[in-house]
Protein backbone atom coordinates (compact mmCIF):
# COMPACT_ATOMS: atom_id res chain seq x y z
CA UNK A 1 0.00 0.00 0.00
CA UNK A 2 1.46 3.34 -1.02
CA UNK A 3 2.06 5.76 1.87
CA UNK A 4 0.01 9.03 1.93
CA UNK A 5 1.42 12.18 0.29
CA UNK A 6 1.20 15.56 2.01
CA UNK A 7 2.08 19.18 1.00
CA UNK A 8 3.84 21.06 3.79
CA UNK A 9 5.03 24.65 4.18
CA UNK A 10 8.66 25.33 5.13
CA UNK A 11 7.21 27.59 7.85
CA UNK A 12 4.75 24.98 9.12
CA UNK A 13 2.12 25.45 11.81
CA UNK A 14 2.30 23.28 14.95
CA UNK A 15 -0.98 21.67 13.83
CA UNK A 16 0.46 20.68 10.46
CA UNK A 17 3.47 19.12 12.16
CA UNK A 18 1.29 17.29 14.69
CA UNK A 19 -0.64 15.64 11.87
CA UNK A 20 2.46 14.01 10.39
CA UNK A 21 3.07 10.32 11.02
CA UNK A 22 6.23 8.27 10.60
CA UNK A 23 6.53 7.09 7.00
CA UNK A 24 4.29 9.82 5.50
CA UNK A 25 5.52 11.22 2.19
CA UNK A 26 5.94 15.02 2.21
CA UNK A 27 6.40 17.66 -0.51
CA UNK A 28 7.65 21.11 0.55
CA UNK A 29 6.63 24.65 -0.45
CA UNK A 30 8.47 27.82 0.51
CA UNK A 31 12.03 28.88 1.25
CA UNK A 32 14.54 26.31 2.50
CA UNK A 33 18.18 27.01 3.34
CA UNK A 34 21.14 24.66 3.33
CA UNK A 35 23.27 24.51 6.46
CA UNK A 36 25.75 21.79 7.36
CA UNK A 37 29.10 21.70 9.19
CA UNK A 38 30.48 24.82 7.46
CA UNK A 39 27.49 27.02 8.30
CA UNK A 40 27.16 25.57 11.81
CA UNK A 41 30.80 26.27 12.63
CA UNK A 42 30.63 29.77 11.19
CA UNK A 43 27.36 30.71 12.86
CA UNK A 44 27.78 28.91 16.19
CA UNK A 45 31.51 28.75 16.84
CA UNK A 46 32.69 31.88 15.04
CA UNK A 47 29.46 33.71 16.00
CA UNK A 48 28.98 35.20 12.53
CA UNK A 49 25.60 36.89 11.95
CA UNK A 50 23.23 34.64 10.03
CA UNK A 51 22.38 36.50 6.79
CA UNK A 52 18.66 35.59 6.91
CA UNK A 53 15.66 36.30 9.14
CA UNK A 54 15.14 32.94 10.81
CA UNK A 55 12.67 31.37 11.32
CA UNK A 56 10.36 33.99 9.71
CA UNK A 57 11.73 33.42 6.20
CA UNK A 58 12.28 29.72 6.62
CA UNK A 59 12.05 27.14 9.38
CA UNK A 60 13.52 24.41 7.19
CA UNK A 61 17.21 23.54 7.44
CA UNK A 62 18.44 21.29 4.62
CA UNK A 63 21.59 19.19 5.20
CA UNK A 64 22.62 19.58 1.62
CA UNK A 65 24.96 21.09 -0.88
CA UNK A 66 23.44 21.19 -4.34
CA UNK A 67 25.12 20.32 -7.62
CA UNK A 68 24.88 23.91 -8.78
CA UNK A 69 27.19 26.52 -10.21
CA UNK A 70 27.49 30.24 -9.69
CA UNK A 71 27.82 31.94 -13.06
CA UNK A 72 30.12 34.86 -13.79
CA UNK A 73 27.13 37.25 -14.02
CA UNK A 74 26.09 36.22 -10.49
CA UNK A 75 23.19 34.02 -11.63
CA UNK A 76 22.91 30.35 -10.67
CA UNK A 77 22.55 27.11 -12.57
CA UNK A 78 20.73 24.58 -10.40
CA UNK A 79 21.29 20.92 -11.20
CA UNK A 80 20.61 18.06 -8.84
CA UNK A 81 19.89 18.30 -5.12
CA UNK A 82 20.69 15.55 -2.65
CA UNK A 83 21.11 15.54 1.12
CA UNK A 84 24.08 14.51 3.19
CA UNK A 85 24.04 12.20 6.24
CA UNK A 86 22.70 14.14 9.22
CA UNK A 87 23.95 12.09 12.17
CA UNK A 88 27.30 13.89 11.92
CA UNK A 89 25.73 17.22 12.89
CA UNK A 90 24.32 16.14 16.26
CA UNK A 91 26.82 18.17 18.24
CA UNK A 92 25.56 21.47 16.78
CA UNK A 93 21.84 20.78 16.42
CA UNK A 94 20.69 21.89 19.90
CA UNK A 95 22.35 25.27 19.63
CA UNK A 96 21.16 25.61 16.03
CA UNK A 97 17.53 25.13 17.12
CA UNK A 98 17.95 27.91 19.67
CA UNK A 99 19.46 30.26 17.14
CA UNK A 100 17.35 29.46 14.07
CA UNK A 101 13.98 28.36 15.41
CA UNK A 102 13.97 25.59 12.82
CA UNK A 103 10.95 23.27 12.76
CA UNK A 104 12.05 21.00 9.93
CA UNK A 105 15.44 19.36 9.68
CA UNK A 106 15.75 17.83 6.23
CA UNK A 107 18.61 15.50 5.38
CA UNK A 108 19.81 11.98 4.76
CA UNK A 109 19.08 9.10 7.09
CA UNK A 110 17.70 10.86 10.15
CA UNK A 111 19.33 11.41 13.52
CA UNK A 112 19.50 9.29 16.66
CA UNK A 113 16.46 8.70 18.89
CA UNK A 114 18.41 10.46 21.67
CA UNK A 115 18.86 13.56 19.51
CA UNK A 116 15.13 13.62 18.74
CA UNK A 117 14.20 13.35 22.41
CA UNK A 118 16.79 15.82 23.63
CA UNK A 119 16.59 18.51 20.94
CA UNK A 120 13.72 18.01 18.48
CA UNK A 121 10.86 17.39 20.91
CA UNK A 122 11.48 20.47 23.12
CA UNK A 123 11.70 22.62 20.00
CA UNK A 124 8.57 21.21 18.36
CA UNK A 125 10.58 20.07 15.34
CA UNK A 126 10.51 16.98 13.14
CA UNK A 127 12.94 15.31 10.75
CA UNK A 128 12.31 14.69 7.05
CA UNK A 129 14.62 12.35 5.19
CA UNK A 130 15.31 12.46 1.48
CA UNK A 131 14.53 9.31 -0.48
CA UNK A 132 16.84 6.81 -2.15
CA UNK A 133 19.40 8.00 -1.84
CA UNK A 134 19.07 10.15 -3.69
CA UNK A 135 16.43 11.53 -5.95
CA UNK A 136 18.65 14.42 -6.99
CA UNK A 137 16.92 15.16 -10.27
CA UNK A 138 13.39 15.05 -8.78
CA UNK A 139 14.39 17.40 -5.95
CA UNK A 140 16.19 19.66 -8.41
CA UNK A 141 12.90 20.04 -10.30
CA UNK A 142 11.31 21.24 -7.07
CA UNK A 143 13.65 24.21 -6.81
CA UNK A 144 11.88 27.09 -8.53
CA UNK A 145 14.91 29.31 -8.15
CA UNK A 146 17.92 30.11 -6.02
CA UNK A 147 17.10 33.19 -3.93
CA UNK A 148 20.62 33.74 -2.64
CA UNK A 149 23.92 32.05 -1.81
CA UNK A 150 25.57 33.25 1.39
CA UNK A 151 29.15 32.67 2.51
CA UNK A 152 30.22 30.99 -0.74
CA UNK A 153 33.57 32.79 -0.70
CA UNK A 154 34.24 31.94 2.93
CA UNK A 155 33.04 28.33 2.81
CA UNK A 156 33.17 27.23 -0.85
CA UNK A 157 30.16 26.24 -2.94
CA UNK A 158 29.61 22.90 -1.22
CA UNK A 159 29.40 24.38 2.30
CA UNK A 160 27.76 27.71 1.43
CA UNK A 161 24.27 28.66 2.64
CA UNK A 162 22.01 28.21 -0.40
CA UNK A 163 18.53 29.71 -0.12
CA UNK A 164 16.16 27.69 -2.32
CA UNK A 165 12.62 28.58 -3.32
CA UNK A 166 10.80 25.23 -3.28
CA UNK A 167 7.55 24.37 -5.02
CA UNK A 168 6.06 20.93 -4.47
CA UNK A 169 9.60 19.74 -3.81
CA UNK A 170 9.92 16.09 -2.89
CA UNK A 171 9.60 13.32 -2.06
CA UNK A 172 10.67 13.39 1.58
CA UNK A 173 9.73 10.84 4.26
CA UNK A 174 8.73 11.74 7.83
CA UNK A 175 11.47 10.09 9.93
CA UNK A 176 10.62 11.58 13.34
CA UNK A 177 7.39 12.95 14.80
CA UNK A 178 6.62 15.54 17.48
CA UNK A 179 6.83 12.83 20.17
CA UNK A 180 10.37 11.97 19.06
CA UNK A 181 9.50 8.57 17.61
CA UNK A 182 12.11 7.37 15.10
CA UNK A 183 11.20 5.67 11.80
CA UNK A 184 14.61 4.04 11.34
CA UNK A 185 14.61 2.68 14.88
CA UNK A 186 11.20 1.16 14.21
CA UNK A 187 12.46 -0.49 11.00
CA UNK A 188 15.66 -1.75 12.69
CA UNK A 189 13.56 -3.41 15.37
CA UNK A 190 11.51 -5.23 12.72
CA UNK A 191 14.66 -6.44 10.95
CA UNK A 192 16.59 -7.48 14.08
CA UNK A 193 14.88 -10.86 14.74
CA UNK A 194 15.89 -12.17 11.29
CA UNK A 195 19.57 -11.29 11.53
CA UNK A 196 20.64 -14.46 13.35
CA UNK A 197 19.39 -16.60 10.48
CA UNK A 198 21.36 -14.59 7.91
CA UNK A 199 24.49 -15.08 10.02
CA UNK A 200 24.23 -18.88 10.10
CA UNK A 201 27.31 -20.40 8.46
CA UNK A 202 29.58 -17.50 9.42
CA UNK A 203 32.33 -17.17 12.01
CA UNK A 204 33.95 -14.24 13.79
CA UNK A 205 37.33 -13.13 12.48
CA UNK A 206 40.41 -14.75 14.03
CA UNK A 207 42.04 -11.34 14.53
CA UNK A 208 39.79 -8.92 16.43
CA UNK A 209 39.81 -5.12 16.21
CA UNK A 210 39.51 -2.50 18.91
CA UNK A 211 35.89 -1.50 18.79
CA UNK A 212 34.94 -5.18 19.05
CA UNK A 213 36.46 -4.91 22.51
CA UNK A 214 36.69 -1.52 24.17
CA UNK A 215 39.22 -2.72 26.73
CA UNK A 216 42.61 -1.55 25.42
CA UNK A 217 44.38 -3.91 27.82
CA UNK A 218 42.88 -6.82 25.81
CA UNK A 219 44.89 -8.66 23.19
CA UNK A 220 43.15 -9.02 19.81
CA UNK A 221 44.20 -12.60 19.02
Amino acid at each position, binding site marked *: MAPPKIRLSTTPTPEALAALKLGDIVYLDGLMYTAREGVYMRALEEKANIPMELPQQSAANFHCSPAASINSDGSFTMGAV*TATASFRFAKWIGEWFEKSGAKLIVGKGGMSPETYKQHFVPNGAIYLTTV*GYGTGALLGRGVENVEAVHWSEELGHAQAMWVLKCTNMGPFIVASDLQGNCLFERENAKIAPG*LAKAYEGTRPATLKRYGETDDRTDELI
Partner: protein
Amino acid sequence: MIPIDTIQSTAETLMDKAAIEIPQDYLDGLRATAAVEDGDLSSFVLQAMLENYEAAKEDRRAMCGDTGCPRWYVKMGNDARIEGGPVALEHALRLATANATNGVPLRPNRVHPLWRTDHNNNVGINAPEIEYGYEPGENGAQANWIDLTTVHKGGLFGTDYRMLFPSDGIEGIRRFFLDSLVAFGKRGLACQPAIIGIGLGGSKDTCMVLGKRAACLRTVGDRNPDPKIAAIEEEFKELGNSIGMGAMGFVGKSMVIDCHIEVGYCHTGGMQMSVHAFCLSSRRAVARIHADGRVEYRTDPDWFTPYQRRETVGWLDQLEAAE
Protein backbone atom coordinates in the same frame (compact mmCIF):
# COMPACT_ATOMS: atom_id res chain seq x y z
CA MET B 1 48.62 9.32 -32.79
CA ILE B 2 45.48 9.93 -30.71
CA PRO B 3 44.56 13.65 -30.86
CA ILE B 4 44.59 15.38 -27.48
CA ASP B 5 41.63 17.65 -28.33
CA THR B 6 39.51 14.57 -28.95
CA ILE B 7 40.57 13.16 -25.60
CA GLN B 8 39.49 16.29 -23.75
CA SER B 9 36.16 16.75 -25.54
CA THR B 10 35.37 13.04 -25.13
CA ALA B 11 36.24 13.22 -21.45
CA GLU B 12 33.84 16.15 -20.96
CA THR B 13 31.06 14.23 -22.71
CA LEU B 14 31.79 11.22 -20.48
CA MET B 15 31.51 13.33 -17.32
CA ASP B 16 28.09 14.50 -18.52
CA LYS B 17 26.88 11.03 -19.50
CA ALA B 18 28.08 9.40 -16.27
CA ALA B 19 26.34 12.00 -14.12
CA ILE B 20 23.03 11.94 -16.00
CA GLU B 21 22.44 8.54 -17.64
CA ILE B 22 22.08 5.48 -15.42
CA PRO B 23 23.80 2.54 -17.19
CA GLN B 24 21.31 0.11 -18.75
CA ASP B 25 22.69 -2.94 -16.90
CA TYR B 26 22.16 -1.28 -13.51
CA LEU B 27 18.71 -0.04 -14.54
CA ASP B 28 17.67 -3.55 -15.62
CA GLY B 29 19.03 -4.92 -12.34
CA LEU B 30 17.12 -2.37 -10.29
CA ARG B 31 13.90 -3.02 -12.19
CA ALA B 32 14.26 -6.75 -11.49
CA THR B 33 14.83 -5.97 -7.80
CA ALA B 34 11.85 -3.58 -7.68
CA ALA B 35 9.63 -6.26 -9.24
CA VAL B 36 10.15 -8.62 -6.29
CA GLU B 37 10.43 -6.07 -3.45
CA ASP B 38 7.36 -6.30 -1.19
CA GLY B 39 8.28 -3.94 1.66
CA ASP B 40 5.97 -0.86 1.42
CA LEU B 41 8.57 1.81 2.13
CA SER B 42 11.37 -0.01 0.34
CA SER B 43 9.17 -0.34 -2.77
CA PHE B 44 8.31 3.35 -2.62
CA VAL B 45 12.01 4.21 -2.55
CA LEU B 46 12.81 2.04 -5.58
CA GLN B 47 9.92 3.52 -7.58
CA ALA B 48 11.11 7.03 -6.70
CA MET B 49 14.61 6.14 -7.91
CA LEU B 50 13.25 4.79 -11.21
CA GLU B 51 11.35 8.08 -11.69
CA ASN B 52 14.48 9.98 -10.77
CA TYR B 53 16.53 8.35 -13.57
CA GLU B 54 13.86 9.43 -16.07
CA ALA B 55 13.77 12.97 -14.69
CA ALA B 56 17.57 13.20 -14.94
CA LYS B 57 17.57 12.22 -18.61
CA GLU B 58 14.60 14.44 -19.51
CA ASP B 59 16.11 17.51 -17.83
CA ARG B 60 19.77 16.64 -18.63
CA ARG B 61 20.33 17.10 -14.91
CA ALA B 62 22.63 15.01 -12.70
CA MET B 63 20.76 12.04 -11.21
CA CYS B 64 22.27 12.65 -7.76
CA GLY B 65 23.19 15.92 -6.11
CA ASP B 66 26.18 14.29 -4.47
CA THR B 67 28.67 13.92 -7.28
CA GLY B 68 30.79 11.54 -5.25
CA CYS B 69 34.41 11.58 -6.31
CA PRO B 70 34.83 11.57 -10.08
CA ARG B 71 37.80 9.43 -11.12
CA TRP B 72 39.34 8.10 -14.31
CA TYR B 73 40.41 4.70 -15.54
CA VAL B 74 42.55 4.81 -18.64
CA LYS B 75 43.26 1.67 -20.57
CA MET B 76 45.77 1.95 -23.37
CA GLY B 77 46.11 -0.44 -26.23
CA ASN B 78 49.69 -1.66 -26.50
CA ASP B 79 50.29 0.37 -29.66
CA ALA B 80 48.54 3.59 -28.64
CA ARG B 81 50.44 6.87 -28.85
CA ILE B 82 48.94 10.02 -27.40
CA GLU B 83 49.58 13.48 -28.80
CA GLY B 84 51.64 15.23 -26.12
CA GLY B 85 52.22 12.02 -24.18
CA PRO B 86 50.86 10.92 -20.79
CA VAL B 87 51.33 14.38 -19.25
CA ALA B 88 49.04 15.93 -21.86
CA LEU B 89 46.53 13.13 -21.24
CA GLU B 90 46.42 13.84 -17.51
CA HIS B 91 46.07 17.56 -18.14
CA ALA B 92 43.13 16.91 -20.47
CA LEU B 93 41.38 14.69 -17.90
CA ARG B 94 41.86 17.21 -15.09
CA LEU B 95 40.64 20.04 -17.29
CA ALA B 96 37.60 18.00 -18.38
CA THR B 97 36.77 17.25 -14.75
CA ALA B 98 36.93 20.93 -13.83
CA ASN B 99 34.97 22.10 -16.87
CA ALA B 100 32.23 19.51 -16.38
CA THR B 101 31.87 20.42 -12.72
CA ASN B 102 30.72 23.87 -13.77
CA GLY B 103 29.09 22.76 -17.01
CA VAL B 104 26.72 19.93 -15.98
CA PRO B 105 26.79 21.22 -13.15
CA LEU B 106 28.20 18.80 -10.59
CA ARG B 107 28.77 19.40 -6.92
CA PRO B 108 32.35 20.46 -6.23
CA ASN B 109 33.00 17.85 -3.57
CA ARG B 110 36.78 17.77 -3.46
CA VAL B 111 38.42 19.71 -0.65
CA HIS B 112 41.74 19.63 1.17
CA PRO B 113 41.46 17.06 3.99
CA LEU B 114 42.80 19.42 6.66
CA TRP B 115 42.25 22.97 5.43
CA ARG B 116 38.97 22.19 3.60
CA THR B 117 40.07 24.40 0.71
CA ASP B 118 37.57 24.01 -2.16
CA HIS B 119 38.63 24.90 -5.71
CA ASN B 120 34.97 24.48 -6.74
CA ASN B 121 35.96 22.19 -9.61
CA ASN B 122 36.62 18.68 -8.18
CA VAL B 123 40.34 19.03 -8.91
CA GLY B 124 43.07 19.27 -6.30
CA ILE B 125 46.03 17.44 -4.83
CA ASN B 126 45.81 13.81 -6.01
CA ALA B 127 42.31 14.46 -7.35
CA PRO B 128 40.82 13.18 -9.55
CA GLU B 129 42.46 9.76 -9.35
CA ILE B 130 43.73 8.52 -12.71
CA GLU B 131 44.50 4.80 -12.93
CA TYR B 132 45.99 2.90 -15.83
CA GLY B 133 45.79 -0.45 -17.51
CA TYR B 134 47.21 -1.82 -20.75
CA GLU B 135 45.92 -4.29 -23.26
CA PRO B 136 47.59 -6.32 -26.02
CA GLY B 137 46.07 -6.45 -29.50
CA GLU B 138 43.94 -9.46 -30.30
CA ASN B 139 45.51 -12.22 -32.39
CA GLY B 140 48.60 -10.19 -33.15
CA ALA B 141 46.64 -7.16 -34.39
CA GLN B 142 47.63 -3.65 -33.38
CA ALA B 143 45.80 -2.08 -30.42
CA ASN B 144 45.95 1.58 -31.36
CA TRP B 145 43.25 3.01 -29.11
CA ILE B 146 42.62 4.20 -25.57
CA ASP B 147 39.57 3.49 -23.41
CA LEU B 148 38.52 6.29 -21.07
CA THR B 149 36.22 5.34 -18.20
CA THR B 150 34.92 7.79 -15.67
CA VAL B 151 33.31 6.59 -12.48
CA HIS B 152 31.56 8.93 -10.06
CA LYS B 153 31.50 6.72 -7.01
CA GLY B 154 29.66 8.14 -4.06
CA GLY B 155 30.13 7.37 -0.60
CA LEU B 156 31.57 7.99 2.77
CA PHE B 157 29.89 4.73 3.77
CA GLY B 158 29.78 1.15 2.56
CA THR B 159 33.48 0.41 2.24
CA ASP B 160 35.58 -1.58 4.69
CA TYR B 161 38.78 -3.63 4.84
CA ARG B 162 39.84 -6.46 7.08
CA MET B 163 42.83 -8.78 7.37
CA LEU B 164 41.48 -12.32 7.45
CA PHE B 165 43.53 -15.51 7.50
CA PRO B 166 43.23 -18.87 5.76
CA SER B 167 41.74 -20.31 8.97
CA ASP B 168 38.84 -17.82 8.71
CA GLY B 169 37.79 -19.56 5.49
CA ILE B 170 34.59 -18.90 3.58
CA GLU B 171 32.72 -18.58 6.89
CA GLY B 172 34.88 -15.61 7.84
CA ILE B 173 34.48 -14.06 4.40
CA ARG B 174 30.72 -14.47 4.66
CA ARG B 175 30.71 -12.83 8.11
CA PHE B 176 32.65 -9.76 6.99
CA PHE B 177 30.46 -9.42 3.89
CA LEU B 178 27.31 -9.44 6.06
CA ASP B 179 28.86 -7.13 8.65
CA SER B 180 29.60 -4.55 5.96
CA LEU B 181 26.07 -4.70 4.56
CA VAL B 182 24.34 -4.57 7.94
CA ALA B 183 26.59 -1.83 9.34
CA PHE B 184 26.20 0.52 6.38
CA GLY B 185 22.78 -0.67 5.25
CA LYS B 186 21.02 0.67 8.33
CA ARG B 187 19.30 3.97 7.45
CA GLY B 188 20.52 3.34 3.92
CA LEU B 189 23.90 4.96 4.47
CA ALA B 190 25.34 2.77 1.69
CA CYS B 191 22.61 4.04 -0.71
CA GLN B 192 21.63 0.44 -1.45
CA PRO B 193 20.66 -1.60 -3.37
CA ALA B 194 24.20 -1.51 -4.66
CA ILE B 195 26.68 -3.38 -6.77
CA ILE B 196 28.87 -4.93 -4.10
CA GLY B 197 32.51 -5.37 -5.05
CA ILE B 198 34.77 -7.63 -3.01
CA GLY B 199 38.55 -7.70 -3.19
CA LEU B 200 40.27 -10.81 -1.89
CA GLY B 201 44.01 -11.12 -1.43
CA GLY B 202 46.74 -8.93 -2.86
CA SER B 203 48.21 -6.54 -0.33
CA LYS B 204 46.09 -4.09 1.64
CA ASP B 205 46.25 -1.47 -1.11
CA THR B 206 45.70 -3.87 -4.02
CA CYS B 207 42.88 -5.54 -2.10
CA MET B 208 41.12 -2.18 -1.89
CA VAL B 209 41.82 -1.39 -5.54
CA LEU B 210 40.54 -4.79 -6.71
CA GLY B 211 37.35 -4.55 -4.67
CA LYS B 212 36.62 -1.04 -5.87
CA ARG B 213 37.22 -2.03 -9.48
CA ALA B 214 35.03 -5.13 -8.99
CA ALA B 215 32.20 -2.80 -7.89
CA CYS B 216 32.72 -0.05 -10.45
CA LEU B 217 34.18 -1.67 -13.56
CA ARG B 218 32.04 -4.80 -13.97
CA THR B 219 28.43 -4.74 -15.15
CA VAL B 220 25.37 -6.29 -13.51
CA GLY B 221 25.10 -9.94 -14.54
CA ASP B 222 28.81 -10.36 -15.26
CA ARG B 223 30.46 -13.38 -13.59
CA ASN B 224 34.05 -14.13 -12.62
CA PRO B 225 35.56 -16.63 -15.09
CA ASP B 226 36.55 -18.96 -12.21
CA PRO B 227 33.35 -21.02 -11.80
CA LYS B 228 33.87 -21.45 -8.05
CA ILE B 229 34.25 -17.69 -7.55
CA ALA B 230 31.22 -17.14 -9.79
CA ALA B 231 29.25 -19.46 -7.48
CA ILE B 232 30.27 -17.38 -4.45
CA GLU B 233 29.15 -14.21 -6.28
CA GLU B 234 25.73 -15.78 -6.81
CA GLU B 235 25.55 -17.02 -3.23
CA PHE B 236 26.49 -13.63 -1.78
CA LYS B 237 23.95 -11.79 -3.91
CA GLU B 238 21.23 -14.03 -2.53
CA LEU B 239 22.63 -13.87 1.01
CA GLY B 240 22.70 -10.05 0.99
CA ASN B 241 19.09 -9.93 -0.18
CA SER B 242 17.95 -12.32 2.56
CA ILE B 243 18.97 -10.13 5.53
CA GLY B 244 15.47 -8.66 5.70
CA MET B 245 16.69 -5.17 4.91
CA GLY B 246 15.98 -3.15 1.79
CA ALA B 247 16.48 0.34 0.39
CA MET B 248 17.19 3.00 3.05
CA GLY B 249 17.41 0.26 5.67
CA PHE B 250 13.63 -0.24 5.58
CA VAL B 251 12.14 -3.71 5.87
CA GLY B 252 12.64 -5.42 2.51
CA LYS B 253 15.00 -7.51 0.43
CA SER B 254 16.74 -5.12 -1.93
CA MET B 255 20.34 -4.79 -0.77
CA VAL B 256 22.45 -6.22 -3.57
CA ILE B 257 21.91 -5.65 -7.30
CA ASP B 258 24.90 -7.86 -7.99
CA CYS B 259 28.07 -9.07 -6.31
CA HIS B 260 31.47 -9.09 -8.01
CA ILE B 261 34.63 -10.64 -6.61
CA GLU B 262 38.18 -10.04 -7.82
CA VAL B 263 41.23 -11.81 -6.45
CA GLY B 264 44.96 -11.19 -6.32
CA TYR B 265 47.73 -13.49 -5.15
CA CYS B 266 48.54 -12.64 -1.54
CA HIS B 267 50.97 -13.50 1.26
CA THR B 268 50.73 -17.21 2.08
CA GLY B 269 49.68 -16.48 5.65
CA GLY B 270 46.91 -13.96 4.91
CA MET B 271 43.55 -13.48 3.19
CA GLN B 272 42.88 -9.74 2.83
CA MET B 273 39.28 -8.74 2.18
CA SER B 274 37.66 -5.45 1.16
CA VAL B 275 34.00 -4.63 0.51
CA HIS B 276 32.76 -1.73 -1.64
CA ALA B 277 29.25 -0.55 -2.54
CA PHE B 278 28.51 1.15 -5.87
CA CYS B 279 25.28 2.95 -5.02
CA LEU B 280 21.82 3.63 -6.44
CA SER B 281 23.51 6.22 -8.65
CA SER B 282 26.06 3.84 -10.16
CA ARG B 283 27.66 6.38 -12.45
CA ARG B 284 30.04 5.10 -15.10
CA ALA B 285 30.61 5.98 -18.74
CA VAL B 286 33.16 4.69 -21.21
CA ALA B 287 34.53 5.68 -24.60
CA ARG B 288 37.10 4.16 -26.92
CA ILE B 289 39.11 6.68 -28.90
CA HIS B 290 40.90 5.37 -31.97
CA ALA B 291 44.01 6.78 -33.60
CA ASP B 292 41.94 8.05 -36.54
CA GLY B 293 39.81 10.12 -34.14
CA ARG B 294 36.76 7.83 -34.09
CA VAL B 295 34.98 7.74 -30.70
CA GLU B 296 32.68 4.91 -29.56
CA TYR B 297 30.65 5.39 -26.38
CA ARG B 298 29.51 2.54 -24.15
CA THR B 299 28.82 1.79 -20.45
CA ASP B 300 30.75 -1.48 -19.98
CA PRO B 301 34.37 -0.68 -19.07
CA ASP B 302 35.39 -4.23 -20.11
CA TRP B 303 38.31 -3.78 -17.75
CA PHE B 304 38.80 -7.30 -16.43
CA THR B 305 39.98 -9.04 -19.56
CA PRO B 306 41.94 -12.30 -19.46
CA TYR B 307 45.10 -10.16 -19.81
CA GLN B 308 44.21 -8.14 -16.68
CA ARG B 309 43.65 -11.35 -14.72
CA ARG B 310 46.76 -13.16 -16.04
CA GLU B 311 48.56 -15.38 -13.56
CA THR B 312 51.67 -16.50 -15.39
CA VAL B 313 54.98 -14.66 -15.83
CA GLY B 314 54.29 -13.71 -19.41
CA TRP B 315 51.15 -13.18 -21.44
CA LEU B 316 52.06 -15.63 -24.17
CA ASP B 317 52.63 -18.39 -21.56
CA GLN B 318 49.05 -17.91 -20.46
CA LEU B 319 47.67 -18.11 -23.99
CA GLU B 320 49.62 -21.31 -24.59
CA ALA B 321 48.50 -22.78 -21.26
CA ALA B 322 44.89 -22.15 -22.25
CA GLU B 323 45.25 -24.04 -25.51
